[in-house]
């Protein structure tokens, strides 16, 4: 092989080897007409040409690392941290980022447009030209439009590339919908109590992410260093937001005590001062138990409760509704009992508001929110919390006391674990209760939220490109992940990224839905799982490739970040922007979009009215290695410093919208399926859950030959459960329930709690022996969640299975 190799690297033979790998998936070897572009012109004797490009990596990791990329003879050869960041903690790259050296050139790359020749799901394709592909796409879109209306075409993109196709639904008049159902289990319960953070942030930077339903941390992670006590519950930043997790060590070195609560021995557990194992799905019980102890021992912050929360607000005992101060304008303002004037007054006018007391006002019998909360806690004594969580009562009391009294406590939550179980909203609501009692918010070191994806500092507001008013998308009322189970007018789908496998539960149903469509277009970089079901497959390129010198711009974590081109698009792939532009051209709307990405980037900067990024232009970004800080970047961002974003400006624990479900105050309820006493336990005794691996971004990097050296798509089990099933390390096993099954190997790991089966999330079908991990996941939904901020939650971790030798 080396005999053929030039100094430039990839030879014709190597290229064909790559092509053959995809050929094995059913691609005919035709259509590889671009070797001239793909093979670099350099010769063995020429001095290599080397240059550097700066770009922010894929965004769905959550860290958005800006990377220094060295390109030699047209090939990506080095990836290093961008040292232009002001803070050392941001100058980062991880195993995933570096592995792109290989992963960009992966054998799983889709190299050419392809059309289906076999049956749906058989994965038989032939290569076609882009012109042929676009012709088919045009015909199918027009056909669907004529038959069922343009809204019968669904454009759905994964989180990674949604922004890149932001104009496509409008161009086609197609349906689209921001997919939720994930990462908002806790937020659905917590965020409504805090309200939108806009205008509630420490000056001068604006921050709008808190209160939006995602359970974002109220203080940014750089603030961890100010915490005296950190309680991490179901959080493992060391995997999920790896390159920001060193801030935990900074906090420890500054003196913070770190307690980790997790069913499994995570890295957070490993690095903590104390690990407290918990029964999965009982986080709400833990928080309510803590609340009980804080109330009983009067460890609460009475001043905060009276001034910053709705604990004093009066509630009509009969209806459960809060008393309003009267008048339409003031209906939003709570009524409280003022001990000073001995009368009921507006909450903002009371001199000495009463936290407790039964009163009759204008013939209406009233209690305070705090009274009602204390009463509901009486039904849930701390002993019950201990039984449910399997945490000793004294330990719950200890962490409740430390959390309430340390002076600066941070509650670090995550997007795994309980966040993906049916009672997550109750846990989130209970977190709001802990906040309301202790005042651990808006102060240095006092914060809570999911320290996971989206852990922003500030986020500047860039200008946006506007389409004419009459060019708009239709809104799909149904959530994307409900399409496999409910009737809709969707007959054709253009899907970019493998949302079908990653963001819907019960994959057998999803595959049936995909196959029921009249036509499916898959746009992707890699041949993943949903691609099997496509009629037309279009090759997109990675963030490192572009036809143009400048690719993208974003504001993230206190910086404006530029994505420069590193290398030309590989094979016949195109950038998402180019594909979108081409489709716009077909439908006569190309002139509505930016002519180039450079024009788009300049527009976003030139039309921004955000003072914190004044003076930042494309040229200054290029001169500053692709990143520049907002003027406020050095100041740590904190939300809800002196007010909340609710109508009353206070933390509103009492949620009237939940009255029909008796969840106006957080009330314990077990998980849907995976509760310890769940009905299905006798048949399927093990809980199955996935976690975000340090080597993957959900379904991305499962074809990384570098990272696959360190991790496989195996399940992990405790020795007790393996022994009782006669399983040995490395055995091939069948994981199954009534919904479906998959087969892969099992690894013995004593980090895993007995009764629990875990697996890194996102593995492709080809990574396991047969089936798909998503075949067993739980597609049940609760009406209660549909009435909450971000709607239905998917119960990805609320799953029971049995495991047997395959």
């Amino acid at each position, binding site marked *: 092989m080396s005999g053929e190799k030039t100094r430039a690297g990839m030879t014709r033979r190597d290229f064909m080897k790559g092509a053959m790998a995809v050929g094995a998936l059913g691609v005919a070897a035709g259509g590889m007409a671009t070797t001239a572009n793909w093979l670099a012109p350099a010769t063995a004797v020429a001095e290599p040409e080397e240059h550097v490009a700066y770009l922010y990596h894929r965004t769905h990791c959550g860290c958005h690392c800006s990377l220094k990329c060295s390109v030699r003879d047209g090939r990506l050869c080095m990836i290093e941290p961008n040292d232009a960041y002001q803070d050392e903690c941001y100058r980062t790259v991880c195993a995933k980022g570096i592995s792109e050296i*290989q992963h960009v050139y992966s054998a799983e790359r889709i190299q050419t447009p392809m059309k289906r020749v076999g049956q749906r799901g058989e994965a038989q394709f032939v290569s076609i030209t882009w012109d042929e592909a676009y012709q088919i796409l045009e015909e199918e879109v027009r056909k669907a439009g004529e038959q069922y209306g343009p809204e019968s075409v669904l454009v759905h993109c994964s989180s990674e590339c949604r922004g890149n196709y932001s104009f496509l639904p409008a161009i086609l008049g197609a349906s689209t919908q921001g997919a939720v159902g994930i990462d908002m289990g806790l937020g659905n319960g917590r965020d409504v109590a805090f309200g939108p953070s806009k205008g509630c942030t420490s000056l001068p930077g604006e921050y709008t992410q808190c209160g939006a339903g995602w359970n974002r941390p109220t203080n940014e992670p750089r603030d961890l260093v100010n915490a005296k006590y950190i309680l991490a519950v179901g959080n493992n930043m060391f995997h999920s937001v790896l390159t920001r997790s060193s801030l935990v060590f900074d906090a420890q070195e500054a003196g913070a005590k770190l307690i980790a609560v997790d069913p499994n021995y995570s890295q957070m557990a490993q690095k903590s001062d104390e690990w407290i194992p918990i029964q999965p799905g009982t986080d709400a019980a833990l928080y309510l138990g803590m609340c009980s102890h804080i109330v009983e021992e009067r460890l609460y912050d009475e001043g905060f409760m009276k001034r910053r929360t709705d604990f004093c607000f009066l509630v009509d005992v009969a209806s459960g509704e809060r008393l309003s101060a009267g008048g339409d304008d003031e209906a939003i303002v709570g009524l409280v009992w003022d001990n000073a004037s001995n009368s009921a007054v507006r909450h903002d006018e009371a001199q000495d508001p009463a936290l407790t007391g039964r009163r009759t006002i204008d013939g209406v019998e009233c209690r305070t929110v705090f009274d009602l909360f204390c009463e509901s806690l009486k039904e849930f004594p701390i002993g019950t919390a201990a039984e449910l969580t399997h945490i000793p009562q004294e330990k719950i009391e200890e962490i409740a006391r430390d959390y309430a009294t340390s002076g600066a406590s941070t509650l670090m939550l995550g997007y795994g674990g309980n966040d993906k179980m049916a009672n997550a909203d109750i846990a989130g609501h209970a977190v709001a209760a802990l906040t309301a009692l202790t005042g651990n918010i808006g102060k240095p070191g006092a914060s809570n939220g999911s320290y996971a994806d989206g852990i922003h500092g500030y986020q500047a507001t860039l200008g946006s490109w506007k389409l004419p008013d009459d060019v708009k998308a239709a809104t799909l009322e149904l959530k994307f992940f409900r399409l496999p189970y409910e009737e809709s007018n969707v007959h054709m789908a253009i899907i970019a990224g493998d949302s079908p496998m990653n963001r819907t539960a019960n994959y057998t149903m999803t595959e049936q839905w995909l196959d029921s469509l009249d036509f499916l277009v898959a746009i992707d970089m890699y041949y993943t799982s949903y691609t099997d079901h496509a009629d037309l497959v279009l090759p997109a390129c990675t963030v490192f490739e572009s036809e143009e010198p400048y690719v993208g711009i974003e504001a993230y974590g206190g910086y404006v970040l530029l994505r420069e081109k590193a290398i030309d698009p590989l094979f016949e792939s195109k950038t998402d922007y180019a594909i979108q532009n081409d489709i716009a051209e077909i439908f006569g709307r190309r002139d509505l979009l930016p002519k180039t990405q450079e024009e788009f980037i300049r527009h976003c900067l030139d039309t921004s009215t955000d003072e914190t990024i004044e003076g930042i232009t494309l040229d200054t970004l290029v001169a500053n290695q692709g990143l520049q800080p907002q003027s406020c970047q050095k100041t740590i961002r904190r939300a809800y410093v002196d007010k909340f974003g609710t109508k009353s400006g206070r933390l509103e624990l009492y949620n009237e919208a939940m009255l029909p479900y008796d969840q106006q105050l957080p009330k314990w309820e077990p998980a849907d399926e995976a509760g310890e006493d769940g009905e299905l336990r006798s048949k399927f005794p093990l809980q199955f859950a996935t976690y975000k691996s340090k080597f993957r971004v959900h379904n991305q990097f499962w074809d990384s030959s570098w990272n696959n050296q360190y991790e496989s798509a195996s399940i992990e089990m405790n020795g007790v459960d393996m022994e009782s099933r006669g399983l040995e390390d490395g055995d091939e096993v069948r994981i199954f329930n009534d919904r479906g099954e998959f087969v892969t190997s099992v690894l013995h790991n004593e980090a895993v709690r007995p009764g629990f089966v875990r697996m890194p999330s996102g593995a492709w079908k080809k990574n396991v022996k047969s089936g798909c991990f998503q075949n067993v996941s739980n597609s049940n939904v609760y009406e209660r969640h549909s009435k909450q901020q971000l709607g239905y939650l998917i119960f990805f971790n609320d799953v029971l299975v049995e495991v047997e030798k395959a």
Partner: protein
Amino acid sequence: MARLAIAVDLHRCTGCHTCVNACKMQNNVPMSMLWNRVITENASMSDGVEGTYPNVSRTTIPLACQHCENPACQKVCPTGATYKDDQGRVEIDYDKCIGCRMCMAACPYNVRQFNWEEPVRDPDFNYGDARVPVRVKGVMEKCTLCKERTDDGDEPMCVVCCPMRARKFGDLDDPNSEISRIRRERNVRILLEDMGTKPQVFYFA
């Protein structure tokens, strides 16, 4: 003269493998070889543990050439290919290496990698630092302490890329260096200290 060295903070090390990939990239290390790896003590998998649930613990140790003051590999090298250089690094002169693998057997840390076959790279071109020599079949290789970088006064790539800021690079001959201070003041762990190899790479917590 200098004694260049790396110290790894084992509390900050989470076993994320960034240093493993950073080294592989920088030094154009082929598939099925790693100059630097992360071992999880007494566990069969990266996120494994010692003990029985819930009485478990986990220690991850990045492991590469220890750049010993008294290198066992150098003593057995019949051609002088392995040598201790004036910066205190253990290096290999690839032209002098005859592939006898005596050093591989002698190294108690099992960090020497031999090119049994023509190297296979994925991607199939020479990535990494262009200054790093390309090794051929029959030659031994291992961590050079990023000779090409440290000669220029830069830190090794594993140190630059460590997202946990767990790795410290410096000169043990300089008593005022951070690494010398760590060696003096912290709870230091030396791998296989009883072998008498006197590693310059060390661990602390």
